[in-house]
């Protein structure tokens, strides 16, 4: 006997009732099964892993930071390669860079610059600083090992070789000096 006031008994009774199945259910289930892809062969799971689509979530700020970082790395590597000028690395693989000081005594000069193979012979690229009132001008330039031709230009027009350095060959009618930077 069941108690009609017992809720659990009511649930049990409803579960015992026969289930009515729609007559077209079997056809629908079989049609869905037919649409499924065939079972994977051995190794196909690995291939599927490689071809799997990944979703990378990135905020706009993160994307810009990533792009800027990559761009900086690429640009820096290109710049370093160009500045090194193909200089041979030292034994430990590092590119040797030596701080090289250029000095000229030019008491009456208003401006002095050094031009050479290391700065595209640009009058504006490497100005010298006046060290004192005696007319000593100087600048320090980082150079990789090699032989560099250069000259001083006083007041933008007067070309002067370095009196402390060997003279270099010149094909253009103005004197050059030369500095050789050693490696290891």
């Amino acid at each position, binding site marked *: 006997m069941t108690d009609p006031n017992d809720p659990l008994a009511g649930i049990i009774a409803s579960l015992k009732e026969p289930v009515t199945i729609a007559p077209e259910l079997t056809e629908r289930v079989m049609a869905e099964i037919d649409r499924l892809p065939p079972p994977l062969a051995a190794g196909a799971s690995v291939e599927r892993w490689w071809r799997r689509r990944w979703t990378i*979530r*990135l*905020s*706009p*700020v993160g*994307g*810009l930071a*990533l*792009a*800027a970082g*990559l*761009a*900086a790395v*690429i*640009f820096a590597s*290109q710049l370093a390669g*160009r500045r090194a*000028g*193909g*200089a*041979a690395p030292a034994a430990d693989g590092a590119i040797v860079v030596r701080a090289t000081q250029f000095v000229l005594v030019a008491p009456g000069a208003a401006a002095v610059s050094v*031009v050479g*193979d290391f700065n*595209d*012979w*640009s*009058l504006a690229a490497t100005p010298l600083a006046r060290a004192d009132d005696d007319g000593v001008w100087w600048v320090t330039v980082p150079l*990789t*090992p*090699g*032989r560099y*031709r250069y000259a001083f230009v006083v007041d933008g027009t007067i*070309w002067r070789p370095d009196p402390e*350095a*060997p*003279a*270099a*060959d010149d*094909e*253009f*009618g*103005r004197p050059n000096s*030369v500095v*050789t*930077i*050693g*490696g*290891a």
Partner: protein
Amino acid sequence: MRDSTSRVGIVGPGLGILVLLIMGALLLMAAAPVPAHGQEPRLAGRIPDAARAQVDAILDAARASGLPAEPLVDRALEGSAKGASPGLIVAAVTRLRDELLVVRSTFGASASPAELAAGASALRAGARSRDLAELRKLRPGQPLTVAAAVLADLVAAGVPADTAVGAVLVMASDAGDADYVAFRRNVQRDIMLGASPAAALGVRLRSATNLADAPGNETTATGGRRKQKP
């Protein structure tokens, strides 16, 4: 835990596309190499128009044959800075190209741009290609930049070319780059003190090869003595 991605995502898909475009532009700008053909950007506005096309053609041919363009560009810029005529600039670049070709055939295809440029300077100074070949043979696996550059420096300082070649080759087996630089500096200093270039080189070469430069016993080509710096 809050999701910052979804938070910024509320600005809509337009910003995402914009970010993608900026990322692409940044990477393209950073990766853009010097064009292999066409006009060399470093020469833009720097050399006379009459020389530009010919110099660019020389540079293109040099790159195509594996020669470094840097020394050639430097030579063109030097000529321009010095106000040389277009013909003179083209002639100088052409001559340097020819010298680089000779040096590369002597030093080998793996020679660095600095080695090629230094070797070209040595050729210009009077060394022969067989001298450079001997240098390569005596210094296997070592950079030749400084040795070749010192050779050219010695000639520039007034040492006869044959004498300079002989000195550099004598030192080639054992000297490091620093030894070559010190050698040249000492020769140059002795010349400035009044020694003849040949005498200065002879004295310094004996010192370099016999290790006669003991502390406090450093001699000079002018006959003087000076103490070694502490």
